C-alpha cells in the first residue's frame, strides 16, 4: 500500500468520522495482506465470463450483480465518495404521476417507501427513516428543487443519508421527472389512518422469537448440540479438538469467546472465533474449517456457547486494539456502494436506529448488537455468523462484498463488539 495514499484516506475517513472526539487517527500502513480461507461462495470473488460479463460469486440465491463501479470497504479502495452533482430538469419530458407512483413503490429500485411514508392501502411496509411525504405538495416546492433533491440531495443537505439516486444511476432522468410529478400530487389533508400498523410512526415494534436458548424454540441450539460430535472427530493430523481441550467445549473453553474478537499477534490481525478457527484447525487437528463452512459455524457456536452468561470483555486499550478500533470506526462511518450509505446511516440513533426501514426496525449499534451471534435466522432457516450478516447488508447497498474473513470486517466487528462490553453473551440468537 502506498503511504501517501493511505494518509489521504486516513484524513478523509477521519473527517467522515469526526462525530466522536478523541478517536485515534486510522493508520492503514500496518495492516497485513490476508489470503482468504473462506468457502468459494464467501470470498467476494467476481468472475469474468467468456462473453465479458462480470458475475459475482456469492451464496445460492444471492444476486450475482457486480458492483465494482462503486466504493467498497476494502482498505486499499481509495476512491473518493461520488462527487456532488448539481443538475437541472431535462427538457421535453412530461411527468406522469401514475408512473411516478409505481416507481416510488418498486422494490427493485428503492423502494422509496423504504424510508418514506405515502398514502395508499397498498403501501406496505413503508419506513420512517425519512420524513412522511403524504402532504409534500402542500409545501409548494418547485419541480426543479424536488428534481435536484432526488438526483443528489447532498446539494441541499450535505449530511443527508438519502442516496444520490440520479448521480449514481439508480434512476434515469426521465424516471425522476415522473417521481417529481407523483410527489406534486400529494396534497393534504391526509385521511385519518385506518390502520396504525401501516403507518411506521405508530407501528408496533417487533415481538421477536422468544427464548433463544430454548432447544424447543431455537433450531440453532439443536444444531450446536450436534456439533459436540465434531469436537471428538479425529482430523487428518491424527488429533481431535478433544485431545487438547479435554472435558468438552463447555468446560475447557469457558470464558474464551468473551475476549473475542481480538488482535492475535501470531497472525498480526484481529480475529473473531470464526477467523481463528480457519488457522487453528489446520495447524492442530488438520481439519481445514474454512470460513462460512458448516463445521466452522457449528464449532464457533459451541465455543461461544461455552461463554454464555459471561460478560463480553474485549480488549479496547492495548495499542493494537486501539489501532484496529480506529480503523473499524472509520469503516462504520465510511460511505460505500451505489446507495452511498455508511453503517452509521442506519444503525446510530442520530439517523436510522430504532426507526423502520420498510418493515424492519433498525438496530442501534451503540446499544450492542453482537453478543447473540451466530444467530438463527428464521427467514433463512439457517444459522448465520456476523460476517455473513455484513455480507448480506452489502448487496442491497450496491457494493461488492469482501471475503468473510477479511481484516476489514474483523475490525468492524471489533468496533461493534466494544458496545457489548460488560453484557452477557447469549449464543445462539434467534432473529428474522
Amino acid at each position, binding site marked *: 500500500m502506498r503511504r501517501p495514499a493511505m494518509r489521504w484516506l486516513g484524513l478523509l475517513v477521519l473527517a467522515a468520522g469526526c462525530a466522536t472526539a478523541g478517536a485515534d487517527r486510522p493508520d492503514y500502513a500496518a495492516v497485513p495482506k490476508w489470503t482468504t480461507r473462506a468457502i468459494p461462495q464467501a470470498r467476494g470473488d467476481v468472475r469474468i465470463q467468456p462473453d465479458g460479463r462480470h458475475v459475482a460469486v456469492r451464496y445460492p440465491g444471492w444476486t450475482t450483480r457486480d458492483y465494482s463501479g462503486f466504493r467498497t470497504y476494502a482498505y486499499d479502495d481509495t476512491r473518493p465518495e461520488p462527487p456532488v452533482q448539481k443538475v437541472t430538469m431535462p427538457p421535453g419530458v412530461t411527468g406522469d404521476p401514475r408512473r411516478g407512483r409505481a416507481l416510488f413503490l418498486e422494490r427493485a429500485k428503492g423502494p422509496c417507501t423504504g424510508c418514506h411514508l405515502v398514502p395508499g392501502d397498498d403501501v406496505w411496509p413503508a419506513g420512517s427513516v425519512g420524513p412522511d411525504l403524504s402532504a409534500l405538495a402542500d409545501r409548494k416546492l418547485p419541480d426543479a428543487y424536488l428534481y435536484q433533491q432526488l438526483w443528489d440531495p447532498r446539494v441541499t443537505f450535505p449530511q443527508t443519508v438519502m442516496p444520490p439516486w440520479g448521480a449514481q444511476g439508480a434512476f434515469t432522468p426521465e424516471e425522476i421527472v415522473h417521481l417529481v410529478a407523483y410527489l406534486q400530487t400529494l396534497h393534504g389533508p391526509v385521511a385519518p389512518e385506518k390502520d396504525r400498523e401501516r403507518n411506521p410512526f405508530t407501528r408496533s415494534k417487533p415481538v421477536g422469537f422468544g427464548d433463544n436458548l430454548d432447544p424447543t424454540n431455537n433450531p440453532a441450539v439443536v*444444531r450446536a448440540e450436534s456439533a459436540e460430535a465434531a469436537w471428538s472427530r479425529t482430523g487428518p493430523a491424527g488429533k481431535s479438538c478433544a485431545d487438547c481441550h479435554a472435558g468438552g467445549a463447555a468446560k475447557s473453553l469457558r470464558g474464551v469467546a468473551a475476549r473475542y474478537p481480538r488482535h492475535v499477534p501470531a497472525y498480526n490481525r484481529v480475529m473473531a472465533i470464526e477467523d481463528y478457527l480457519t488457522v487453528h484447525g489446520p495447524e492442530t487437528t488438520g481439519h481445514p474449517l474454512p470460513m462460512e463452512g458448516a463445521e466452522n459455524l457449528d464449532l464457533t457456536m459451541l465455543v461461544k456457547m461455552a461463554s454464555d452468561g459471561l460478560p463480553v470483555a474485549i480488549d479496547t486499550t492495548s495499542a493494537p486494539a486501539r489501532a484496529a478500533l480506529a480503523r473499524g470506526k472509520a469503516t462504520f462511518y465510511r460511505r460505500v456502494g451505489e446507495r452511498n450509505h455508511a453503517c452509521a446511516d442506519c444503525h446510530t440513533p442520530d439517523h436510522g436506529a430504532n426507526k423502520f426501514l420498510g418493515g424492519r426496525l433498525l438496530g442501534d449499534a451503540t446499544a450492542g448488537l453482537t453478543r447473540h451471534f451466530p444467530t438463527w435466522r428464521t427467514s433463512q432457516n439457517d444459522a448465520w455468523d456476523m460476517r455473513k450478516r455484513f455480507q448480506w447488508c452489502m448487496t442491497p447497498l450496491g457494493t461488492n462484498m469482501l471475503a468473510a474473513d477479511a481484516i476489514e470486517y474483523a475490525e468492524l466487528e471489533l468496533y461493534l463488539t466494544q458496545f457489548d462490553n460488560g453484557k452477557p453473551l447469549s449464543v445462539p440468537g434467534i432473529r428474522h
Partner: protein
Amino acid sequence: MSETGKVRLRVPSSIKAGDVIRVRCLVIHPMERIERDKAGKIVDRKYQYIDTVTVTYLGKVVATFETTQSVSENPFFAFAVKATDPGKLTVSFHDTHGQTYEGSVDIAFS
C-alpha cells in the same frame, strides 16, 4: 439438514400430581414447500413434510396434530396434558415419506 429427525421436548421443571402442564416440542424437519417451475406450474413430486404428530401419555393418545405444508420448517408444537400419574410422555412425528421421529420424557412429580 442432516439433523432431520432430532426431537427436543420440554416440560415444566416441577410438576405436582393433577397439574395441567404445557409441553413444547421441536423437531428438525425440512417441511418441504410446494415448488413451482419457471412457468408457475406446480412441480409434481412427493414433498416431504410432517403430516401427523401424535402425543401419547401413559400408553394412551391424548392429542393428535394433523399438519400440512403450511406449517414451518423445524416446527415446534405445544399442547396441554393433565399429569395424573408418573409415566412416559411420547411425541411421535410421522412424515409423508413414511419416516417417524420420536422423543420421550418421563413425567415425574416433585
